[in-house]
């Protein structure tokens, strides 16, 4: 199951905080599709995932909008 998170127009680090709060409610293996417009999120969300044990499956930028697909890790921060 893939959940969605709209973090458009939020500025760093709010997209990261929203991702963190949503992931906390999810189970290992579930996916979260995040949409954001702050270019900083392209580095911050993957960095947050790396240090907290989650995987970025896909990161795309189209017309100033980022789409990041995350898979929740086994022992990540919840």
């Amino acid at each position, binding site marked *: 199951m893939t959940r969605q998170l709209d973090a458009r*127009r939020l*500025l*760093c*680090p*709010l997209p*990261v*905080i929203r991702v*963190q709060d949503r992931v906390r409610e999810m189970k290992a293996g579930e996916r979260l599709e995040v949409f954001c417009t*702050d*270019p*900083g999120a*392209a*580095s*911050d969300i993957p*960095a*947050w995932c*790396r*240090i*907290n*044990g989650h995987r970025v499956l896909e990161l795309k930028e189209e017309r100033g909008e980022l789409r990041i697909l995350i898979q929740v890790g086994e022992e990540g*921060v919840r």
Partner: protein
Amino acid sequence: MTQQRKALALISGGLDSMLAARVVMEQGIHVEGVNFYTGFCVEGHTHAIRKRDRDKPKRNNALWVAEQLGIKLHIIDVTEPYKRVVINPKHGYGANLNPCLDCKCFMVGRAVEWIEAHGFDFIVTGEVIGQRPMSQRRDTMQVVVRESGVGDRLLRPLCAKNLPPTLPEREGWVDRERLYDFSGRSRKPQMALAERFGLSDYAQPAGGCCFLTDEAYSRRLADLWEARGEREYELDDIMLLKVGRHLRPRPHFKLIIGREEGENNFLEGYRRRFVHLRTVSHPGPLTLIDGELGPQDRELAARIVARFSGGREAAEVEVQLVDREGTEQRLRVAPMSVDEVKREWYL
């Protein structure tokens, strides 16, 4: 088997907190980081808005530090509870609207709640005696201990040898001899320690990681409070204080004028909630009106907007004014001359 002790390190993204965490990790303590988002943090918003800043490296320094250290980082949104710190600081403000001592008490207090909820043993900060005029003096560092409720569970590894032993030292979880005795404003000991740890690419915000230490920003915030007649704010208010030119030609309204494309795009997101203006006959910025615009103020606002448009030298500029209900009005105005835009209007 001895119990694995756990510490929560306050990570600002700067060098000192990074070193403090590293020093404790070196002693076999399990460390995780916490970073509090107050809404006034300098990094983040600024780089995302202005087009000229878009080419600068974009990274959240706290996340970057955590990754360098190989620790987990918890970013906690404290924008709501932090308001009471900014609005009514018990210990007052620093040179600007920076409530540094109350801020430190608040953050350590939040960290105490976190360690108690998560079964951690103590807290680590990068404070150094004498480093900061308000929050990092021997006397005020004791205030933080007292008012945050942390007691002897706060370890400041960079200056621990200058302070009485704390719980982790007394219990032998960390070896006091392998902690440091830094003091004063010199950065040399920290830089030497960074070199020893092989850390070179660290952020050096020089006390500037918070907008409240910025004079111009504080002036805008003070103006906002004065104009509203109360010391309150919402997150959107403090975001908008970071963007554009702010001019207050009359006590009951101010103009927020985008300075370039990136700022105009940012202001676009707020447009529907504000009376806003833009030039029609010439290229120009998007302008939001914060406050109430009386009928007699409309021409004044339009003339100021025209001044900051491509038509500033034209005899007449057509300006579109849209109110909160979406009703549109067109005004043909003469742009203000340089001298007519009063210096004291600028915030």
